[in-house]
């Protein structure tokens, strides 16, 4: 432990030193803030030039990514071996870290302020200046790649050169960040994402890429059942003459059906919910009964009283389904009371997955509960939202990421380090 926090501040000039040090010429060792800023500035400028001349960097793919990761690890080890040397000291110095953090902050700020596009395949005379310099597709540009790489070299040196068992927060955060950034950056080209749409009752093993190209996957999915649970619908008032819904302050005015709170207001009307059937079929226009069928609609019996005229109306409203349009309730000549499309509470696909290796798995997939099989993870993505409950297909996203274990390890260490930062506060974290 350190007695006085000031004592451990490197480069903090004492009063007597201040005068002589302020006249210190540039580039004398050890390098400090001016040199770090110039170096990081040069790296950024180099990135912009490379983008201008070469176009966006090509993705790194296996085994190139593996060599890159090994190279970065070797650089970190070399940093430790040469920890007394000038280069390792510079790369593990706080001034360089501040310059790098500022550069990352600045590039992110640019990304946060300007819309980002997909990178162009090659530099061309017709592109704007921003596009030529990579500024409108920063995540896949040379400037960001250059800063990213320098940050990784620096972090590697920071962890090895400054390692200390007494400073868990410091070691965990930087080691975790290094692992996470290596996995995310170097592994980017090895990640695969495909979108597969499977019809209910059908078997699918092909995916369609954005260009329309059809590719066969090493696994097939059979969709045995697709099930959707909904929240109670909301009600809107629709102007009979224009067909437009009622708005207030530019926002759609809606009333949430909620059996716990059966009374409310919508526009000019006081509403009262008399009956609510989350799954119903209609016998005729004035009679709905509860059902368990999957092609069911939501139906509610309501009483609406106009506050301006005092007239009241009573009747059923319902959502529609494939073969039946929604049923609104007519409120005099002016308005229709209608249900909006209900929001999904949960959607689940019951599937059987077959891999080329002959593995077969039967399971359900839903949002936040992907299915992992071999090197792939299958995510529930979407369904035919126009058809809702009676959607005849389910959309999946297939993700392959061989660097996942390393990214997870980094995430875990960085989280542990952040917790340590909170717990140890100022005194001991170091």
């Amino acid at each position, binding site marked *: 432990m350190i007695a006085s926090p000031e004592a451990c*501040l490197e480069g903090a000039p004492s009063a007597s030193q*201040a005068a002589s040090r302020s006249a210190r010429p540039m580039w004398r060792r050890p390098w*400090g803030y001016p040199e770090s800023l110039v170096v990081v500035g040069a790296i950024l400028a180099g990135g912009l030039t490379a983008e201008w001349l070469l176009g966006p960097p090509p993705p790194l793919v296996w085994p190139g990514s593996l060599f890159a990761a090994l190279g970065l690890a070797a650089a970190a080890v070399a940093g430790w071996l040469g920890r007394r040397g000038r280069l390792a000291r510079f790369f593990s110095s706080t001034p360089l*870290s*501040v310059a790098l953090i500022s550069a990352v*902050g600045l590039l992110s700020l640019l990304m946060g*302020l300007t819309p980002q596009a997909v990178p162009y395949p090659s530099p061309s005379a017709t592109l704007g200046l921003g596009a030529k310099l990579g500024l409108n597709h920063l995540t896949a540009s040379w400037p960001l790649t250059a800063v990213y790489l320098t940050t990784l070299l620096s972090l590697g040196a920071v962890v090895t050169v400054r390692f200390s068992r007494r400073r868990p927060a410091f070691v965990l955060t930087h080691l975790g960040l290094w692992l996470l950034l290596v996995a995310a950056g170097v592994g980017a080209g090895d990640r695969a994402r495909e979108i597969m749409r499977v019809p209910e009752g059908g078997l699918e093993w092909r995916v369609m890429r954005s260009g329309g190209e059809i590719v066969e996957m090493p696994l097939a999915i059979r969709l045995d059942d697709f099930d959707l649970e909904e929240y109670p619908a909301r009600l809107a008032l629709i102007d009979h003459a224009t067909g437009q819904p009622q708005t207030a302050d530019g926002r759609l005015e809606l009333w949430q059906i909620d059996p716990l709170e059966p009374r409310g207001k919508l526009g000019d009307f006081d509403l009262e919910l008399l009956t609510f059937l989350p799954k119903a079929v209609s016998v005729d226009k004035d009679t709905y009964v509860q059902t368990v069928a999957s092609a069911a609609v939501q139906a509610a019996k309501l009483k609406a009283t106009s506050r301006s005229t005092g007239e009241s109306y009573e009747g059923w409203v319902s959502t529609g389904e494939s073969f039946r349009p929604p049923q609104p309730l007519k409120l005099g000549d002016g308005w229709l009371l209608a249900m909006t499309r209900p929001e999904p509470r949960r959607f689940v696909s019951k599937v059987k997955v077959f891999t080329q290796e002959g593995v077969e798995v039967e399971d359900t997939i839903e949002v*936040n509960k992907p299915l992992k099989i071999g090197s792939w993870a299958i*995510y529930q993505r979407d369904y035919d939202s126009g058809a809702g409950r009676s959607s005849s297909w389910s959309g999946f996203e297939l993700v392959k990421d061989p660097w996942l274990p390393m*990214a997870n390890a980094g995430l875990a260490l960085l989280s542990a380090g952040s917790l340590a930062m909170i717990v140890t506060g100022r005194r001991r974290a170091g």
Partner: protein
Amino acid sequence: MSWSWHGYLAPLSMALWLLGVLMAIKKRPWLAFWLTLAGTLVTGLFIAGLWVRLERPPMRTMGETRLWYSFFLSGAGALAYARRRFAWLLIFGCLLASVFAVINVVKPELHSKALMPALQSPFFIPHVTSYMLSYAVLAASALASALQLRKISAAGVPDKSLDDFIDSSVRTGLGLLMLGLLTGAAWAKEAWGHYWSWDPKETWALVTAAAFLAYLHLRRSPPRGAGRRLALLAPPLGLVMLMITWLGVSYLPAAMGSVHIY
């Protein structure tokens, strides 16, 4: 407990906070602490009631996150006051908490029960609470930095206890901010298969983290000359970024199609 209760409970909270602040000014620290905490607990009670009523964590709409911010700001203000006896911290926490409570009373939003499937995750609660808590702590660090800057330009020397407070609050706040980012990343992986997709809210959270990281690392070895003052500029700048992340992202051209618009 539905939102209509807020019209009664928010003024009660604010009255208790006001009394707490008055006691702090009158130098009655324990009374100040307990009164403020009572106000916080009233807000907490409302959050709990709303949670039960909505059958989901009340963390989805802007109005709901404002409730949490009120709760954490006043609570953190009270606790930090009990430990360090900075009256300004208590005043600041209660004032901001009241501002958010008033916004919720004056401009209530459409409150829907629906919680889309992607939000139904064990990561939801730690993600939002660590962000809200970090916002409260980092806001305090930014205010303390501004006070310290004024002290330096007036007296020429920084205040030691303020320095300690800034250092520890940036550490705590940044640690919480990182946890918010990381739980968000882990969650995005579970829900969509990608840790990070440069969603505008993510990008701005990164900018915010960079500002506070700059403070943390600058403090370690201040540059010569105006170094300390330079470091002290980072937390207030970070607070601006934080406000853009939380409130402003929806208005930016870059935010079209963000998953974080609500």
